[in-house]
């Protein structure tokens, strides 16, 4: 088996995550889909690391995880504070920033 299949899997997972972002209205689920996309990227990075025979790809994946953790913390805080004031977690309801 050629390890390039991992890349196909990553592309597939990334696309599924993207579609989820577009389709789901629940902000928490949207966030999960973003996590899915990040994970797909990480898989690609790890595969690339194996392909090139060095550890730089894994480092990038590692940093992605750190950044994702920071993002999740802030994002979930935003969701909680929106829920407190508006009693909803739907991204469609937060649509005041329009003309």
């Amino acid at each position: 088996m050629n390890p390039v299949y991992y890349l196909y899997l990553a592309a597939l997972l990334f696309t599924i995550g993207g579609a989820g972002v577009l389709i789901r209205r629940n902000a928490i689920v949207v966030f999960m889909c973003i996590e899915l996309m990040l994970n797909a990227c990480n898989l690609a990075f790890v595969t690339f690391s194996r392909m090139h025979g060095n550890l730089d790809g894994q480092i990038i994946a590692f940093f992605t995880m750190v950044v994702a953790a920071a993002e999740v913390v802030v994002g979930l805080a935003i969701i909680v504070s929106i829920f407190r004031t508006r009693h909803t977690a739907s991204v469609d309801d937060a649509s005041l920033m329009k003309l």
Partner: protein
Amino acid sequence: MENLIALLVAAPLVGAALLLCGGSRLDRAGHWIGSLFAVASFAIGAALFADMLGKSPEHRALHQHLYSWIPVGGFRADVAFQLDQLSMTFVLLITGVGSLIHIYSIGYMAHDDRRRRFFGYLNLFLAAMLLLVLADNYLLLYVGWEGVGLASYLLIGFWQHKPSAATAAKKAFLVNRVGDMGLSIAIMLMFTTFGTFAFGPVLASTGATSQGRLTAIGLLLLLAACGKSAQVPLQSWLGDAMEGPTPVSALIHAATMVTAGVYLITRSGAVFNAAPDAQAAVVAVGAVTLLFGAIVGCAKDDIKKALAGSTMSQIGYMIMAAGLGPIGYAFAIMHLVTHGFFKAGLFLGAGSVMHGMNDEVDMRRYGGLRRYMPVTFVTFGLGYLAIIGFPGLSGFFSKDKIIEAAFAKGGTEGWILGGAALLGAAITAFYMTRVMLMTFFGEKRWDPEEVHPHESPKVMTIPMIVLALGSVFAGALFSVNENFVRWLEPVTSFAHGHSPLSATAVTSATMVVLIIGVGIAWAMYGRRPVPATAPRGSLLTRAARRDLLQDDFNHVVLVRGGEHLTRTLVYLDHSVVDGAVNGTAATMGGLSGRLRQLQSGFVRSYAVQMLGGAAVLVAATLLMRGV
């Protein structure tokens, strides 16, 4: 000595500042202060003149550099004065006649509440005029040029409570702007051509410059001269300028300011000598104006307007002479000086008559005044004899020389110019005799119950006597030994013209036309009684009364034309310019109205757009790699 030059300008300037800023505290002494500064300026001028006479002709020119005004890169404007023979002549004329008229005004304006202000303006005028003739470069000359325009505006409109005076002031100012524009463009052109606008370098390098440039500069300078000196086609303001007080008419609109154009052309003689086309235009303007002014002067019943027409005509003589080149410059200036004497005297006489006649200006309401104001009669009469060129008086010498020089121009041109000058002399004799007869001779046409003609006070008559003496003797003094020509020669250069007619023949012809003109006037106004209301008159008379339709022409061509042009421009502005601008705005507005629909506020719509963009980027990247 040259350090005194700045004082010439400074004295009246200080006087003006003192009088205009001093407030009503100076009301009682204002006229004495103003006159004092004018006389002081004359005294300095006289001292400089005495000093100048003591030097050899080549070393007479003085130069004073005050400070660098605008030094920017290659552009350098200095406040520097140059006092040569030409400037000296003007300085003496301006300060001399100016001082006399200051003194005269003490009496003439005695009953005016705003006399202090009047003297302030007069001093301001003196300062500006002296700056004009003393400047050593065109830019500083321009400052003086605008300064005299301002003073002229203020003084014409001095009686601003009269709508006619206010309008006349505005008219004079606006018409002068046209000429001033010519001068400013000429200065810019000089700078681009010569890289400087100081008299010395500009006039010295005319030989190495293209004919076209010089012609353009010359024509622009002529335009400036036309505006300031009331020459055709910018002559229309001078008649209305008579709305100002009579001393103003005498000083500014007869003796000094209106001759600034002649000064400009004479000063720029080197430019005109090198540009024959411009010179031809100068001659044409002078010849046309001398006839134009004379005809207008014949028809006016207002004594000051008749004299204004005469002024226009006499300046036409000077401009024509200046246009003749080296054979005419000296005579132009000579006529300018003698004219300064006799025309100022005539105006002061007219002022004296008005003073005694309750400010009546219509000559048809005068008549037989010689018994009531003998001093005025005698001085006015001497001025009259001088202007018509009576043998032995100053006008005879100066005008005769100009006619001679006109013939000396040579060829058909010479004959036409000489003929025009002779015809002008005849008409001059006619209208001046008419003025004389209608004012001082014949029966009384005024109501003795209401008007009590009387002689003016001494403070007014003494300047008139001095000016009359000048108009009698100046010409002879200048002509003996060709004094004046030799005096000016280092500045203006001089060449003897070769007239096809001998000097005697020209003089005889002048005498003949003089007698014809006086005779016709005598036949029309001396033998028959003058009607108190003007008869309808011939077509030419009526046209001349209306200043030969100059205002009508201006109105139809310039005002109406301007209005139509403006309307067209407004229409174009509305439909084309505004249409384009508003159309763009409306298009943008409509477009944004549609575009903002994309801003739905739904974050998922934005996400779709982002994904679309990302897809396009990936596709583009793949395509680029695939190629």
